[in-house]
């Protein structure tokens, strides 16, 4: 597959170009919504790295997302840091947390891994409530507009301004998308897939599967933290709801919908789920029922998610 690198590269460039073009044509509301979706698609991409490629099903990724959210948000709120430094603080928080969680949780596999990650995430969530004096607890904290400005060489970027926000979201999304594409096609990515398919055999071939899995947990944690940090900086709210179990399950659903172990699946899944909720909630308060039915139908007819099924059936080169 390595020799056929043109089509995937062209597809990814085309997707980024399309998202860039949408900046100029989308109505205001959908423009704002897509900025949010791209940030959350990064969350899903981070999740996909671990779930799709390594086959480790975590139910605790909200803690990595919120490590970035609180890492950057609290640095601004309490320490008065600038936006770039706060974003860095979010990434470091995510890296440290995922390293520690990885070291502990990777001693387990399968169902136990799910439960351990979920428990750690619950601990993280309850710690946010416990330290409410600093975190704002379940009510959360608001980052003021004046705290979300970036000064670059005399130019001020206002992250609350819609186009700036969209472009920053797109920038983050593009960087992570290209990074996951490169990773998926790298030797590291192939080792991860090998671990997913047969860990014993991979170990027998001489690979340190624990180290590779740990690297994947940290990479996944950092990407999710980048999403959380961007969420705090772009949308100005830091709250414990975003660390709750619901936000651990959402990236799983987005990835399952779009297609696990596909680079663009997380985006497709996030867009799909957001718009199903947005459109159906205009008609009925039972919109989660519609979401549930849509999920059941997708699992029945697209068991590998939208892009996973397309790859299996029609477009074999889809990364």
């Amino acid at each position, binding site marked *: 597959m390595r020799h056929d690198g043109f089509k995937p590269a062209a597809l990814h460039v085309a997707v980024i170009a399309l998202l860039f073009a949408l900046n100029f044509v989308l109505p*205001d509301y959908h423009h704002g919504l897509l900025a949010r979706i791209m940030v959350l698609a990064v969350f899903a991409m981070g999740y996909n790295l671990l779930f799709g490629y390594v086959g480790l099903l975590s139910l605790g990724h909200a803690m990595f997302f919120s490590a970035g959210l609180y890492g950057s948000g609290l640095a601004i709120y309490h320490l008065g840091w600038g936006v770039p430094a706060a974003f860095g603080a979010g990434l470091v928080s995510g890296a440290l947390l995922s390293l520690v969680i990885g070291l502990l949780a990777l001693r387990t596999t399968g169902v136990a891994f799910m439960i351990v990650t979920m428990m750690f995430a619950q601990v993280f969530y309850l710690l946010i409530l416990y330290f409410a004096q600093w975190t704002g607890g379940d009510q*959360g904290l608001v980052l003021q*507009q004046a705290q979300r400005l970036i000064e670059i060489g005399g130019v001020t970027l206002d992250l609350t301004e819609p186009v700036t926000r969209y472009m920053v979201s797109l920038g983050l999304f593009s960087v992570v998308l290209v990074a996951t594409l490169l990773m998926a096609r790298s030797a590291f990515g192939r080792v991860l897939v090998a671990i997913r398919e047969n860990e014993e055999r991979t170990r027998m071939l001489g690979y340190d599967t624990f180290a590779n899995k740990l690297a994947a947990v940290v990479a996944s944690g950092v990407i999710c933290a980048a999403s959380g940090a961007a969420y705090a900086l772009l949308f100005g709210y830091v*709250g414990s709801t*975003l660390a709750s179990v619901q936000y651990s399950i959402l990236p799983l659903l987005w990835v399952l919908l779009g297609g696990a172990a596909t680079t663009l699946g997380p985006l497709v899944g996030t867009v799909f789920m957001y718009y199903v909720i947005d459109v159906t909630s205009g008609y009925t*308060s039972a919109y989660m029922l519609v979401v549930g039915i849509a999920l059941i139908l997708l699992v029945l*007819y697209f068991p590998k998610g939208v892009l996973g099924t397309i790859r299996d059936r029609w477009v074999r080169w889809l990364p």
Partner: protein
Amino acid sequence: MSSFIRKSITRRTALKGFGAAAGLVAGPGFVRYSQAQSSEPIRIGFQAHRTGIGASYGRWYERTTNAAVKAVNDAGGINGRQVEVIVEDDGTDPGRGAEVVGKFATQHKVDVAFGTLFSHVVIGSAPAAGENKLPYYVVSEGHHVASTKLNRYVFQPGITDVKSQIQAVAPWIAANAGKKVTQIFPDFAFGYDHRDYLPPALKAQGADVIAQIAIPPTESSFTKYFPQIPADTDVIYHVMVGPAVLTFVKELGEFYGSNRPQLFGFIDSLEAVDINSPGLEFLDGSHFWEGSPRYAQPDDSDAQKAYRAAVGIDENGASVDDPKDVSTAAHMFGCWETLYVIKKAMEDSGYQSRDDAGKLVEATEALTEFAEGPEHPQGPKTFNGKIHQCFGIQNISKLEGGRLNVVHKTSIEDGMYEPEGDYTTQPL
């Protein structure tokens, strides 16, 4: 299954697909509205908790809002224009709440957003309101608006905040229930407001909080906490919320039997719950804070009677259509009163369109008093434009004979406190 997937796309299936896509695009989420003209209705975006933990409140907030809008429209609307309410469900979730406020501003092009109750949804949505310069009138009773930590576009003119409520009831507790108070509260923000504001308020009245017992929100059994209640407690001040409240009361009753201290609670925990539900017998004879009384009172004003009739609640505070459907009477009046504040501010500023949002904000900040009457049936209020918060009277009711009877009304001054900031210094 595979034949379904592999079936080639025919012209008919393609047309079906396009038809479905067109249906989606024509749906409510996609419709684009032109800028409101002076002859068009005033559009109010109602951010409703239709689903999620706030759904029982949300249902009654919606019912009260619809009644108020009907009353406003029957009387000629606002600035001669009818009022139209656009409802979006926020799922009682702060993330979705922010999206809904963004949708109101950029998709529905409403004039103001309105109606949110749960604190975390208000706080999560506030940045979206400020960034879109959309005046956002909440009915939340949280202290977050008055703390001046939000922004200039967020107001709470129709319901008092919890800090004010606690401060107002403290003198009555100290004088009538007892001087030694033990607090039992949920271990999250709603409980923290009570934890932080009650001790100084009681201290000023010569009474003391002698123990504070925080109960984790995940707890489902409470007996193990009760031995922490000091034996010399005069009053247990409880603000448990959520479904566990019935278990809490039942276990407290089993713990104390007939020989119990005085009980004082906030009705928040029992809003939309029949006070005569099995298990709540232990509360008989105890006292509650109520924003507006659930049960009709002998001295109800004509305005209060008219308000209750318009919303459709009976003598017992339940729906006139279904006596089992108990309302959230202590809070929902805030929707009614807030709509009339919006009306007043729009009339004062000569509001025409979203271009006048700044003028509307300033006109709201310029308001100082709301007289008791059909527009403010709960009672008179003052409004502090610097902190965007109103102050009003509070009711203390005694549960006796299966109903809540108001035994004391606080004064507005009882609930006043020093402002903690000034929104008017922020740019519009």
